[in-house]
């Protein structure tokens, strides 16, 4: 139901620099800043206005000419007082702010949802599978190597394909602003690009049982060179490396989703 004008406006937004792009951290921080400033401003204005009016029209304030005001009457059929226009103006203003803010972020959503293009990934896509299980994360590399630590090269798009071997988990690395649900029998995709080398911690963000508080993993962002070196020395993990009892058989062999919005 989008009119042409709206589509056009969206295209302009997408192509212009108004829409935040870059790494996920940059995008998130830019948008959050704008929301925080605007949200605070709106909140302060509205609450201040409300307190001011409440103070001004306090019972002992004497700001109202009582003979000119029509007070409610016990037992009357409920009715309203006028003021519809003022109400509508304020409502429209708030609607414009909210809708434009969300439309603005929608451009970024489209950007975030796009899979990294070939130019961006340098031809070979790096896809790492992430498997959640009570209460640990297992990372499976393209060559079948499994690890408890997520190693990834700096300055390169890394695609994560996330699922769970038992219950509903949620994989998130706050330092990289990447997060997605880990659902048994389903696969969710997300990506990140780290700008600096260093270490981050991944957490589980969905209650998954008694060990939920400690379901963390180390994320190590390495120089590209170092990563390649490390990667070339890895070998496919065989079935004897059982990470987690029962669920282990699923590791490395992801149970792919069977048709629901994959």
């Amino acid at each position, binding site marked *: 139901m989008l009119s042409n004008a709206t589509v056009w406006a969206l295209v302009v937004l997408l192509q212009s620099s108004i829409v935040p792009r870059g790494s996920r951290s940059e995008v998130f921080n830019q948008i959050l800043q704008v929301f925080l400033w605007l949200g605070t401003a709106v909140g302060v204005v509205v609450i201040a206005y409300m307190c001011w009016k409440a103070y001004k029209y306090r019972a002992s304030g004497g700001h109202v000419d009582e003979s000119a005001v029509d007070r409610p009457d016990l037992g009357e059929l409920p009715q309203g007082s006028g003021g519809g226009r003022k109400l509508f103006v304020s409502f429209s203003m708030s609607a414009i702010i909210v809708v434009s803010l*969300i439309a603005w972020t929608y451009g970024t959503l489209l950007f975030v949802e796009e899979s990294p293009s070939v130019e961006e990934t340098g031809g070979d896509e790096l896809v790492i599978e992430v498997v959640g299980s009570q209460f640990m994360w297992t990372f499976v590399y393209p060559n079948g190597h499994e690890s408890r630590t997520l190693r990834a090269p700096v300055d390169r798009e890394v695609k994560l394909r996330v699922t769970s071997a038992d219950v509903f988990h949620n994989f998130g690395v706050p330092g990289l602003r990447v997060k997605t649900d880990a659902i048994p029998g389903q696969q969710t995709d997300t990506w990140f690009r780290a700008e600096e080398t260093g270490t981050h911690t991944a957490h589980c963000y969905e209650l998954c*049982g008694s060990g939920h508080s400690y379901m963390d993993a180390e994320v190590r962002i390495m120089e590209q060179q170092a990563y390649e070196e490390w990667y070339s020395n890895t070998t496919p993990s065989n079935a004897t490396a059982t990470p987690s009892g029962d669920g282990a058989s699923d590791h490395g062999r992801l149970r792919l989703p*069977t048709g629901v919005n994959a």
Partner: protein
Amino acid sequence: MSDDEATRPDGGASDGHAQADGGSAEAAGNPVTPEVPAVDHDTGGFFETDGLPDSASIKRWLVTTNHKDVGILYLATSLFFLVFGGVLALLMRIQLWVPRAAGEGILGPVAYNQAVSAHGLLMVFWFLSPFAFGFANYIVPLQIGAKDLAFPRLNALSYWLYLFSGLLYGVSFFQGSAFSGGWTMYAPLSVPSFLPSIGATTSVLALVLFVASVTIGSVNFLTTMHRMRAKGLSIRDLPLFTWTILLTVWMMLFAFAALLAALMILSSDRLLGTTYFAQTNDAGSMLWTHLFWFFGHPEVYIVFFPALGVMAETFQTFTGRRIVGRKWFIGAMILVALQSFGVWMHHMFLTSINLQAKTLFMATTIGISLPFDLMVFALIYTLVKGDIRFKTPFLFSFGALVLFIVGGITGVFLGAVVLDYEFRGTYWVVAHFHYVMVGGVTALVGGLYYWFPKITGRMYDEFLGKVHFAMYFVGFNLLYFPMFVVWETPRRVFAYQSSFAPWHQIATIGGFLLGSSFLVMFYNLYRSVWDGEIASDNPWEYASTAEWTIPSPPPLENFPGIPDYTDGHLSFRDDSADAAADGGVVDTASGGGELAHETGHEDHHVSHASIWPFVVGVGSFLTLLGASGFRNGSLVDGGMGGVYLGLLLTGAVVTLGSLVAMTVEPFHGPDVTHSEKWPFDGVENTKLGMWIFLASDVVLFGAFIGSYAFVRVAYGWQDWHHLIPAAHVPLPGLINTYLLLTSSFSVVVAMVAAQKEKKGWLLGSLVTTFVLGVAFLVNKALEWQHLFHVHSEAFPQGWDLSTNIASSTFYLTTGLHGAHVAVGLLITLYMIVRAARGAYLGNDEPIEYFGLYWHFVDIVWLFLFPLFYIL
């Protein structure tokens, strides 16, 4: 109306209002209220009529069906659960004082998860809604001018099921461990292979019982509000609090039916061993999130709307201004209520739903936030030109609006999907929804102070009320605001980044301040009930709704006459005379009018006390406690198994017996001769109640059929056939289709026979219906027996409930239908016995209402048969 206002001297003196209202006083009959005698303030002021014992005796509270008594019971019980849930929250806050290693602190990991889950469930289900419904019970009939709810005993039943469901949840803590999978109960963590304790099952069953209570309550409130308004009070003219309750109850009716479906499936997975949510079902996790959030999002408005209603009422009263843009306010609420069923996937932005779905639900989410902007502005502009008195109720309402604004703005953050991706599962979400939900609680606490003088006949202590507000408001913000600051803390963990500790410590201190503020309230209200200043009928200047025109507390029969708004102002007409002789009132020739009219005379000597709702509550409690001893279709091992079985059987006997006793007991609902009933003029109360109940049942079956379709599509619609043995043929289903259709016909014959007063035909057709229904069940039993013991290459172990997802959906969905048939047969049996004694002749309504149910059950089968036998 405006003419009256113009002539009225605006003195502004508090109680002189009615008298000063010269213009309309005579016609309105308004000033009769001060003369209404016999309010005995010394004994708490409750009347002793209608066969109810004195309010000082415990028995009174066990047998009462009066809406005001039930309202008080709801309020008291919900406050108990507030303390229960609150203590759990404080335990959590103590645990969060510093980041803990496993086993450190006062709560172990499993105990912490139990506290998290129980806190959420108790506060949302057992505190918030019932607290609001305490007011709804007490105030709504007064505001619409009804003597009581349409079905007073069902109202008492709602309460007792609510209380016993809460007690059942309490018991679950002592059965190993209560449910510990979070209040959202995500699958597959919720199934026994991950949460094996019996207590977890009991918690789920407690919720089922709670939903039963809510459904009965919804049917009752909807019938009441649609059929029992005072003359001249159209739906459009309802006071805003009643409006919010009306919309809340409509949302409840449908949303809780979806939750009931989800909980029944979960219970079946836990008790009978079906595999909907098992890890082996690839679509199970997503199925749960869809079902849960389809309920869960309307639930947000279900708990918030009554608070909005309290805000609207108190703003109008304490500013002395009618609300700005009333029509828009109501329109906005209706929009929200409708739209609330179309936003659920915004809780699932990070699941495997696709971009199109995300975009759509982002749009509907923004759409639903906008009407709230309008409502907030309407409340704010109502302040302008007010005569604002900062009494305790207004302070709480005003504070609630401030908190709601903060909650709303931080909610817009979550509507931006890119931000939501990062906020998901963090304290941002926790802080946001506590600002909204506990913001709502704030307004409801205001409501408690507002209506306290009406309910008890005494004033609370204003100074202590203000102290409560100050502690509450400061404590609230100390508790929840720091959560925005350290939003990166993951939810439901107690090991967090140590640099966050100072903020969490502030939050903990705030939590204790907030909690202790309630001690002030309890002290204040407790003292005031006994020693408070006597409250007048209307202690609040500018209050305008009907509850303030009658004594505080109101007498059992509520009004001194028949409430009437025909001339734009509430008046009470004489109801002592025969209604026919009551010249002033034009009797609408409504369908059920005569029936209700007839019973109206008996009103005075028929007892309004009934012990059976209480006994049904006890029976359900025992039944479900016994049921919790099952796992995968068999009893738990050891001696406890026998105990559970005994509880189950005892409970079943008690429940069934008391239901029969309740049906046999003579009892008459309130008279509706003089009410406004649009758009249900031609429908009798019980019939409307049946229709409304069936509407919720449609959603229940819809959710079951939807679940079936969802898992089947996920599995592969055609591949599904591999999960079903060749022995599963359409023939038994086809036979059953014919059996049911014939039985529907025989019910119609029974109805006609009753109309024509032909006893033989009536009995014959009822017995035919019964026999056909029994044949349906026997045929089904034979079919199931056969399938259970299939021996084929693909199914060497037979094809039972837990064989695979196809068998689970087949047995559970058709089983739910079979249970409906069984219930229908019990009713038929009861009717056969009564018909044999000469009942129903010339009075076919009961058979008609049963027919509605029976035809509905048939129609459901017409959907199930192709879905489970042919496609």
